[in-house]
Each structure stands twice: as structure tokens, then as C-alpha cells.
């Protein structure tokens, strides 16, 4: 590959200065003259029929300009997955969880809106509620959505290979159950929306969203107006992690009231609303049976997974599908039987969150692998290396893995943490562990899947880039600009980017499935190539040589390998213009993952993603046996991201993921009692602070994927799959306890240590509550 000048460089984010100086504008930072402030009334009941909503007293509050309930809005359901639409912007007829949206008001001040909300009277008829997914699946359980009588709104039953036969052929069988908790994404910026309507009736919505184009579609659907009457603009977004993928009541209500009042309308969620009424990671109950050969080959796995979906679907079918398919990476697994259910309960709603359905099952697999390794007398690292998937191998679900650095990540993470010297050799209370994972770089099983880009070469030689990609703080705009700068041979500062405005920028699916760099990056690269080609045509004519002989470097177009023979980009533009070629110089690009169409894993197998990332994370922990507190001392994160377009940003993704994963392993859980969230604040919920942060080493493994722009694959979501199991495995090494439910709180640690102490005369293996090993 040619020497790269912009790609591969540690460039600060393009908008970092704006953010460092307070000039960056997030949705709630925007205000318009005459703006109204909105508030939403939420259900205090977990499950109830709405008999009557009386808005009259609310409407009398001075300053109130509008009040609505579910009966005032178009009866149009929405949902991020078209086949799983089950939600109204405001509840119609009944509420399904504590926090469900019942009514909304707008007023000239937030104080007035809050007062008005308190004056709305709602008559409910309380219904029996169900809070446990297993109870919800039983006959006779309360029905949360009439059209889903067993509360199972999405399920998957898939078999690859022949699991029954493979179990018979196994030398050992292992069977155990795991449980994961509800986790809130906790973006620092609460969800917000601001809407205006122009005289033609077109709505413009500024929103904290990861997916402007999906939001446009869902808004048009719920408002019952054409898509052309909706413009969505994404200002700066203060983190998303999957939580800003869905349309929320705030989006709909801002637009609806703007249409109704002809005034700008803003809705901003309180932190409590973010905890209760947005989305969270699905809690899962996982039952896992694994068949092993004596030589350490994983022969077969059987899963039963029950995901607690809460009151609505959000991404349900996709979530449970991802959980299934990504069992078959990063380890070779030819026989898999997967039974998965997404179950409604009267609780906060599950949705996409960094890793999307995979971290839960990955925790189960990685924790069990460690226990298998021990029982079989194999080093957990060697067991993983033996089963590590390799590039080009046939995949049972027809995933096309062109590059795979998994084995390298295993070796490097192990080396980094000091595996050989430390595993099983540290004093009681200290331990190391590791875990592996794989993630798609974008998904190809939904509509709105192609990404477009436009690159314009301006008269002064600067570059304008239009992309639909949604930067939510991960640095997408910077990475895509680096790709364009590299392609055109200009420095990064020559690129001006306009992104994520549905009226101006080309279609893009948005930020999910960790596909932005690959998908939008490829589109922008193709657009840059197209623009360059036009300029090359002119330059070649002037220089009287063939286009193929030219290259663009250092703001010049010259003969390959001979910088002297050529001209500046500006000279080329001048010649282009004077030779009466069409201005402006525009290159257009679009990219769609090369998949069999349609590759909906929901119905059939196929290559789900253009590329797959691979990773290993290794942890060293210290357990305070007096307090039960686990301290993560060190993490080594080794990630095959294909090619780091911007290594500093890739490190940032890894570090943020490690700390988030640590929170999910040790601290975080959205606790509910009878559907009521008991800890809806940062103080009570407790995401990691700087005090808990371990030393983190990032080790990049580059595999240069042929499908990725300059070889790049994902580094956003996959990075959060392995930290939790790595930490859990390190805890075992430290204190000899295998935890099977997250988070591992000090209470759980102390209880386990006490139980161990009571059993201390027994041999260590029998301390393990795992079912027996059955000799095959």
C-alpha cells in the first residue's frame, strides 16, 4: 500500500475545539424566538387501561398553549424494526409500564408546563401486571399487547449442523445458567428535540439522534405526513451508545405541537426520564450446554435465551438474532441450537445498546469456556487459541470472514497482561482473566442500508463533503474526512464537512451496528474518487498524458512517483473551468454492504456484514476479601479493527468501552420493583468515575480488510463485548468463585467468600456449583 498521509494519523476530532470552548451546540443549546417548552405526563402504573384523560385544568394554566393525550394523535404505530412496530407516540387506550407516555403539554415557560402536567387528571383501570419474563410466558399471564397473547413478541429457533448428534459424539458435556442485568446507556446528554414548522407545513426537527433518516421516516409515519414534509437535523449529540436510535415521544410531541401552534417547540428529558422511559440493555437468562472433544474442540452448543424486553419491542427481532449468530464467532462452532425469546414485561423497554444482544451471551460463553478449560485441564488461553476462527474458513451461517486477527488479539492481550506469569500464580485475591469476541462492521439486513456521499472540489481547492453519517461523539465526521483527504491528496484542514441533515446530505442509515466507518467511509471514498477522476481528466488533457498515470498528493496532481511533473489542485481546477467543463466538480458515491439481497438473518442466512472485527480483552483484578469490592487494576484491550483510520480515536473507543464494560461487570444495574425503577439517577445507579479506572493498554491488530475503506473495520461496539467476561474470569482466578450473574457486587462477593470458607475442607472443584461433567 502507498504511504498514507492522513489516514492512520492521530488527528484530533474536527469539532474538538468547539467542544473545548463551549461553542458546540447540542439540541438543548438551541433556542428560537417564541419557543414553547414541553413536558410529558407519564404513567404511574405498570399496566392499566386509560379510561379518561382530563386536560381541562392543565389548559387553564397561564402560558399553556396546548395539551394532548393519545386520543389526539394519529393512530399510527412506530418502531425501529418495521416488522415489530408496537408503539404509539403517546399511549392510546392503555399504559404498559411505569413511565409510559400518557399526555403532553406545551407552554411559554417550563415552569408553566410542569404545573400544567400536574393538573392533568387521568382515570385508569389498573390491570394485573407481570414483571418476570418467565412468568410472562406462562399461560394465563397478563397480556401486555393484545396481538401477542403469550407475550413473546420475537423469537428465534435455529439449528446449524446437528447438535443432538454432536452432543452424542462429545467427550464431555457442560451445562449451566447465567443471568445478566438491565443496564442504562447513560449518555451524558439527555434526549432532546426542537421543532419548527414553515408556512408550507414542513417540519424541521433538531434532535439528539443517532439515525436522522430513520427518525425522519418514523416521524412522517407517526405525524401521518409525507417524508418530504419532514427535515431532521442532528446537531452535536452527547453520546448515544444505542439509546438514541429510537424515535421518542419528545420527537413526536415537539413536531406535533409545532404543527399545531405554529411556534418553535422544545422537549428535553430529565435524567430520571432517561433512566425510566428511553431504552436499556436487555436483561437475559441464558441456559447454555456445550459439548467438548477431549482435545479441546468445541463441538456443539445449545442455548436457551430469554430476554426481558420490557413493555415494547424496539429492536427485539434483530437483538435476539444477533445474540444467536454471534455465538458462531470468534470461535469455530459447527453445531449450534439456539432458542431465543424476546418477552414483554411491564417494565422499562429494552433496546439496542453497544454490542446489541451479544454481550449477554458472550458473557455466558466466555465464563463457561474458562470453567470448561479448568475442568479439562487446559489453559483457557490455549483452549481459545485452539478454537479460534480463522479468515477464509467456511462459516456455518455463511458469514464471509475475509480478515480475522482473533488469534493475534488473544496472544497480544495475554502477553500484555502477563498471562503466563500470572494466571493461577498470583496470591489469593489477585487474578487475571481474558475473553474474546467478534462484531459486525455494519449490518445489511435492514432498509435504509446504503450510505451516500457527495464530494465537491471548490474553486479555491478546498473540499466540501456531504455525508448522512451521524457523529454522536465517536468522531465519525473526522474519520470520514480523513478518508476523503487521503483520497484527494490534501491535508485534513482542507475538508469542510456537512453531515446528518436529511434535506441536504445524502441518505445514510445512521450510527448503529458499528457500521459508520466502513459504510459511510466507503461511500465518501468513492465520492472522492469520482471527483478526483473529473479533475484528473482535465489535468491529463493539459499534461497530454493518460489519466492512469496521475496521482493526487500534497495538494498536487502529478505523474505517479514524480511530484515535479504536475500541477497544483488549484491550477487543475482553473484549467478544468477554462476548458468549459461542468462546474462545480462533484463526485458522488454510495456504498451498500455486498450481501445477498435481502440478507435478513431474521429469515435466512447470509453474509450479514461486510466485515467482522475481532478482539480479546484481558483483565487483572484485586478483590478486597473484607469488603467484597473488586478493583480492576489493569486491562489490555487488543482489537482487530482492520486498519485504524485514526488510532487516537480507536483508542478512545477501546478505553470508553473497557470502562463501560467494567461498570456492567461490577457496578451497574437498573433495579426495578414491581416495575418501578428504584435508582433512576447517576448517584443511585453509579456508572464508573475516574477513581475506578484501571490502567488500560490498547493493542491494535491490523488486518487490512479488503472491504473496508483503507482496510478499516469497526471499533465502536465490539470493544464492549469482552471486558465484562474478562473481569469475571479474572475474579475467578483471584478468589476461586465463578459468578454467573451480573453485576458482581460486593454483596455477592462476600456471600460467595463466606460460602467458600464454609466449604473449605472440600476439594476446590466441588466448590464449583456447576453440574457434573458427563463422560461421553
Amino acid at each position, binding site marked *: 500500500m502507498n504511504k498514507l498521509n492522513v489516514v492512520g494519523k492521530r488527528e484530533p476530532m474536527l469539532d474538538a475545539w468547539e467542544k473545548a470552548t463551549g461553542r458546540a451546540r447540542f439540541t438543548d443549546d438551541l433556542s428560537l424566538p417564541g419557543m414553547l417548552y414541553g413536558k410529558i405526563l407519564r404513567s404511574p402504573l405498570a399496566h392499566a387501561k386509560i379510561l379518561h384523560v382530563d386536560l381541562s385544568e392543565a389548559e387553564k394554566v397561564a402560558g399553556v398553549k396546548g395539551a394532548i393525550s393519545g386520543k389526539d394523535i394519529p393512530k399510527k404505530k412506530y418502531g425501529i424494526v418495521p416488522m415489530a412496530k408496537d408503539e404509539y407516540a403517546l399511549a392510546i387506550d392503555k399504559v404498559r409500564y411505569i413511565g409510559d407516555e400518557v399526555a403532553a403539554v406545551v407552554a*411559554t415557560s417550563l415552569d408553566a408546563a410542569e404545573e400544567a402536567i400536574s393538573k392533568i387528571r387521568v382515570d385508569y383501570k389498573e390491570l394485573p401486571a407481570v414483571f418476570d419474563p418467565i412468568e410472562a410466558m406462562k399461560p394465563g399471564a397478563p397480556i401486555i399487547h393484545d396481538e401477542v397473547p403469550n407475550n413473546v413478541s420475537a423469537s428465534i429457533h435455529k439449528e446449524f449442523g446437528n447438535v443432538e448428534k454432536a452432543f452424542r459424539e462429545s467427550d464431555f458435556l457442560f451445562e449451566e445458567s447465567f443471568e445478566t442485568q438491565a443496564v442504562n446507556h447513560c449518555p451524558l446528554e439527555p434526549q432532546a428535540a426542537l421543532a419548527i414548522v414553515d408556512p408550507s407545513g414542513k417540519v424541521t426537527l433538531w434532535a439528539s439522534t443517532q439515525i436522522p433518516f430513520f427518525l425522519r421516516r418514523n416521524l412522517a409515519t407517526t405525524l401521518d405526513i409525507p417524508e418530504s414534509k419532514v427535515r431532521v437535523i442532528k446537531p452535536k449529540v*452527547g453520546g448515544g451508545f444505542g439509546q438514541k436510535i429510537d424515535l421518542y415521544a419528545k420527537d413526536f410531541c415537539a413536531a406535533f405541537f409545532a404543527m399545531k401552534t405554529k411556534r418553535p417547540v422544545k422537549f428535553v428529558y430529565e435524567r430520571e426520564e432517561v433512566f425510566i422511559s428511553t431504552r436499556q440493555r436487555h436483561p437475559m437468562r441464558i441456559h447454555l450446554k456445550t459439548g467438548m472433544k477431549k482435545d479441546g474442540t468445541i463441538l456443539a452448543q445449545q442455548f436457551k435465551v430469554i430476554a426481558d424486553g420490557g413493555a415494547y419491542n424496539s429492536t427485539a427481532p434483530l437483538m435476539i438474532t444477533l445474540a444467536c449468530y454471534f455465538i458462531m464467532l470468534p470461535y469455530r462452532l459447527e453445531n449450534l441450537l439456539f432458542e431465543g425469546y424476546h418477552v414483554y414485561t411491564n417494565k422499562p423497554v429494552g433496546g439496542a445498546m453497544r454490542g446489541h444482544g451479544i454481550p449477554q451471551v458472550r458473557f455466558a460463553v466466555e465464563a463457561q469456556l474458562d470453567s470448561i478449560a479448568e475442568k479439562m485441564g487446559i489453559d483457557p488461553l490455549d483452549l481459545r487459541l485452539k478454537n479460534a476462527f480463522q479468515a477464509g474458513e467456511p462459516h456455518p451461517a455463511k458469514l464471509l470472514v475475509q480478515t480475522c486477527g482473533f488469534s493475534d488479539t488473544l496472544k497480544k492481550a495475554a502477553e500484555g497482561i502477563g498471562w503466563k506469569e500470572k494466571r493461577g500464580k498470583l496470591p489469593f485475591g489477585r487474578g487475571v482473566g481474558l475473553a474474546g469476541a467478534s462484531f459486525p462492521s455494519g449490518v445489511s439486513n435492514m432498509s435504509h442500508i446504503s450510505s451516500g456521499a457527495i464530494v465537491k472540489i471548490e474553486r479555491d481547492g478546498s473540499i466540501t463533503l456531504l455525508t448522512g453519517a451521524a457523529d454522536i461523539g465517536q468522531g465519525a465526521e473526522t474519520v470520514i474526512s480523513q478518508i476523503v483527504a487521503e483520497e484527494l491528496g490534501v491535508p485534513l484542514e482542507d475538508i469542510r464537512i456537512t453531515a446528518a441533515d436529511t434535506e441536504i446530505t445524502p441518505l445514510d442509515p445512521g450510527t448503529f451496528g458499528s457500521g459508520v466507518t466502513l459504510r459511510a467511509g466507503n461511500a465518501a471514498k468513492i465520492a472522492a474518487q469520482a471527483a478526483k477522476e473529473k479533475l484528473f481528466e482535465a489535468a491529463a488533457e493539459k499534461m497530454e498524458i493518460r489519466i492512469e498515470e496521475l496521482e493526487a498528493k500534497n495538494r498536487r496532481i502529478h505523474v505517479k512517483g514524480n511530484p515535479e511533473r504536475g500541477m497544483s489542485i488549484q491550477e487543475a481546477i482553473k484549467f478544468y473551468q477554462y476548458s468549459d467543463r461542468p462546474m462545480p466538480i462533484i463526485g458522488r458515491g454510495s456504498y451498500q454492504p455486498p450481501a445477498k439481497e435481502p440478507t435478513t438473518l431474521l429469515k435466512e442466512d447470509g453474509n450479514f456484514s461486510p466485515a467482522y472485527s475481532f478482539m480479546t480483552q484481558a483483565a487483572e483484578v484485586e478483590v478486597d476479601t473484607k469488603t467484597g469490592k473488586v478493583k480492576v487494576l489493569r486491562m489490555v484491550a487488543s482489537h482487530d479493527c482492520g486498519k485504524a483510520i485514526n488510532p487516537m480515536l480507536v483508542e478512545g473507543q477501546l478505553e470508553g468501552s473497557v470502562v463501560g464494560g467494567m461498570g456492567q461487570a461490577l457496578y451497574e444495574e437498573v433495579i426495578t420493583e414491581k416495575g418501578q425503577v428504584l435508582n433512576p439517577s447517576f448517584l443511585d445507579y453509579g456508572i464508573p468515575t475516574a477513581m475506578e479506572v484501571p490502567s488500560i493498554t490498547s493493542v491494535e491488530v491490523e488486518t487490512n480488510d479488503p472491504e473496508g475503506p483503507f482496510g478499516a473495520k469497526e471499533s465502536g461496539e465490539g470493544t464492549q463485548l469482552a471486558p465484562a467476561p474478562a473481569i469475571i474470569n479474572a475474579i475467578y482466578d483471584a478468589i476461586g468463585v465463578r459468578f454467573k450473574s451480573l453485576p458482581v457486587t460486593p454483596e455477592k462477593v462476600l456471600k460467595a467468600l463466606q460460602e467458600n470458607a464454609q466449604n473449605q475442607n472440600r476439594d476446590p472443584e466441588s466448590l464449583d456449583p456447576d453440574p457434573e461433567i458427563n463422560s461421553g
Partner: protein
Amino acid sequence: MKGFFMKRILRLHMNGDEHEILTETHKTLLEVLREDLGLTGTKRGCDLGTCGACTVLIEGKPYLSCLTLAVDVQGKKIVTIEGLTQDGEPHPLQKAFVEKGAIQCGFCTPGMILTAKAFLDENPHPSEGEVKKAISGNLCRCTGYVKIVEAILSVTSKT
């Protein structure tokens, strides 16, 4: 009450300027900054004093503006993130945050930088542990704090 509250003229010394504003007496400094003065660099992350995104400096000390009544800080010297850049020159912390990759979504950044500034003014040569403790009231969900700590320490090593 019909949705309107008592107003009063407040005099605030903000980023080197005197401001006289007519506003409700129950408003927090955060609300006055964002809504009355248009200084939206100060962020509202929780409105409960738990995230640190609304941190401003009052007489050089970090305060959570969401828990501070604007009427109480009249006559005191207040600095927000907008006031940290002086005569077009960014503060070394701002530069360090940009260059070290300590900023991702940027929502926690203003509060984080101001907390760090107040801390370094008191303790110009802290240990890594002291830096972590100093910013432990400022939450960040993107960066894992690693590059934030690096950025703050890089400023201390230059002085």
C-alpha cells in the same frame, strides 16, 4: 400559582463582564446562564448535582451551577467555559483536551475542564491519583477518562 413567578433584577459578574438581568428568583445559576445569558457551554446532564456537567467557577472554585441559586452569587466572580478563552488564547487545558483526544461527545468537557482548572490552580503538580480524585465528580461515558487524565497531567508537566 398560575405559571408565573416573582422576578427580580440580578447583577452577575460573568466572564469579566457585568450583566444585569430580570429573572425569576428561584432560578438556578445553570438556568440563568443557559436561558437568560445564552451561555450554553455549561451543560445540564442531570439537574441533580450528580454528573458535574454544569460545573462553573465561582471565585475560582468549582460549583455545580444546577444546585446554585443565581441570586446567591451576585457580586461574585463567575467563570464559565466561554470565559476560559482569554483574548482569543485558549487555556492550556483546552488545548491539551483537544490534542490528547480527551474529548469525544464533548458534553462533559466544559465541566471537566473547569474542574481541572480549579484543581490545578490549587495543586499545580498533582499525582495521577490526585487528578482522578479531583475529577471524580465529573462523569464521562465516552472516554473512560483515560485521555482526560492524560490531558490534565500533560498540562502539569509543562508548568
